[in-house]
């Protein structure tokens, strides 16, 4: 008795629970959102920087050098938020076997690493005029450094595995393990810092005025909008690349080539 096996198109997203998990629908929705995000990023960034650099009062102890925190703190917050988001979408990918979730997770990684790098760099720039040294083993800065290593670990593992699906799954698992460990790492580093009587870089609480806080929040949103824009662009790029055998993608690629 002979059995026939037919090559068939996998059913279209009938097992995906989210409306926009279908690659084509997500692609076009994202395409509309991206320019809005860029606009938001520029506008908020401009407002935040003007507030922070020109209008926020000079700090009693640290003078004007502290103003770097308007980049340092938002970048640091984003770096942590993005790691959690990366782990979340990785988990979604593993649970629902959804390629879009994996793509999202992978696209976040580089931006997250960049945010971490900016946070560390600006941390150093803050340290120099304030403490006289380029690097201080402050609890938060050290934790940021370890976070950078976690991002690098994720990116290294992803690029080391040839099969893309396997790479996505393994990297997602690593991200989840990392996210669970981050609190443990943070607390042990904090402990390490206090017990060894290390230095601490902060703006003194009493001088944290509302203008400063506002400016930091606005900058954070600006970074967030930037991250959205960049990450969604990357996801779209990957989608076109991976779905290049489908009709809608081919049409879209032709259209893009025509506009260049």
């Amino acid at each position, binding site marked *: 008795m002979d059995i026939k096996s037919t090559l068939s198109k996998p059913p279209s997203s009938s097992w995906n629970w989210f409306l926009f998990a279908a690659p084509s629908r997500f692609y076009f929705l994202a395409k509309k959102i991206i320019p809005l995000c860029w606009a938001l990023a520029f506008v908020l960034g401009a407002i935040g920087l003007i507030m922070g650099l020109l209008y926020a009062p000079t700090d009693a102890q640290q003078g004007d050098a502290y103003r770097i925190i308007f980049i340092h703190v938002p970048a640091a917050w984003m770096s942590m938020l993005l790691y959690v988001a990366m782990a979340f979408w990785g988990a979604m990918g593993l649970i629902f076997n959804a390629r879009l979730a994996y793509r999202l997770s992978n696209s976040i990684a580089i931006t997250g690493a960049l945010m971490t790098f900016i946070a560390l760099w600006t941390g150093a720039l803050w340290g120099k005029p304030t403490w006289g040294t380029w690097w201080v083993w402050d609890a938060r800065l050290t934790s940021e450094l*370890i976070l950078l*290593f*976690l991002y*690098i*670990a994720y990116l*290294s*593992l992803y690029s*080391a*595995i040839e099969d893309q*699906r*396997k790479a996505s*799954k*393994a990297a997602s*698992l*690593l991200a989840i*393990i*990392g996210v*669970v*460990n981050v609190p*443990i*790492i943070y*607390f*042990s*580093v904090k*402990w*390490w810092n206090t*017990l060894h009587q290390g230095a601490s870089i902060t703006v003194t609480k009493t001088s944290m005025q509302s203008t400063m806080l506002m400016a930091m929040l606005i900058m954070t949103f600006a970074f967030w909008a930037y991250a959205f824009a960049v990450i969604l662009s990357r996801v779209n790029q990957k989608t076109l690349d991976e779905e290049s055998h489908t009709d809608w993608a081919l049409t879209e690629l032709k259209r893009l080539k025509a506009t260049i």
Partner: protein
Amino acid sequence: MQKISTLEILLAVFKRDISLALRRQSDTLGAVFFFALVVSLFPLAIGPETKLLQQIAPGIIWVSALLAVMLSLSRLFNDDYQDGVLEQLALSICPLALIAVAKILAHWTYTGLILLCISPVLALQFNLSGIAIEVLLITLFIGTLILSFIGSIGAALTVGLKSSGALISLLVLPLLIPVLILGTLAVDAATANLPYSVYLYILLALAVLASFFAPLACAAALRIALD
């Protein structure tokens, strides 16, 4: 022919791994010699001043132990993957996570415990006090166990990759920083005659957590690799 229980299967896996490690003596001893060598490199690089060495000794021994264990991790699952035994382990009637526990405990036995045996000698090289050596041994005992558990996750994620040695360290060392910090803080506290038991309790707690979650993560990673 008779049926055997899950525990007996795990014991068989444990014994097999130990026996394989014994047959590959050069690898097993290699880690020990590496440990001793790296520890000795530091005085050569820093200078023989006794007081300074005494201060940094716990850190040096701990970091060297970390690196030595990292070296031995890449063989944990790779050999079985190359021979096709990993597939059979994944098809066993015994859960893969439990088999991972057996392999990890075996790994600890032929790596961590052996390092533990020679660390008193190395500690003496640095003139550490009696109580400090005692606490160092306790922290290394618990610490190397955690190292094997968490390290195995790195080994499982990189199974089948060429030159996975450096990659495993990259994946796993950030996760081991709390263990490193707690271990060295404990020894420093002991040397300064301050209470140190809280660090040991937390290390124990981490060991319990690691022994529960790491095998699950390992099994998941191994199935991804077999995919």
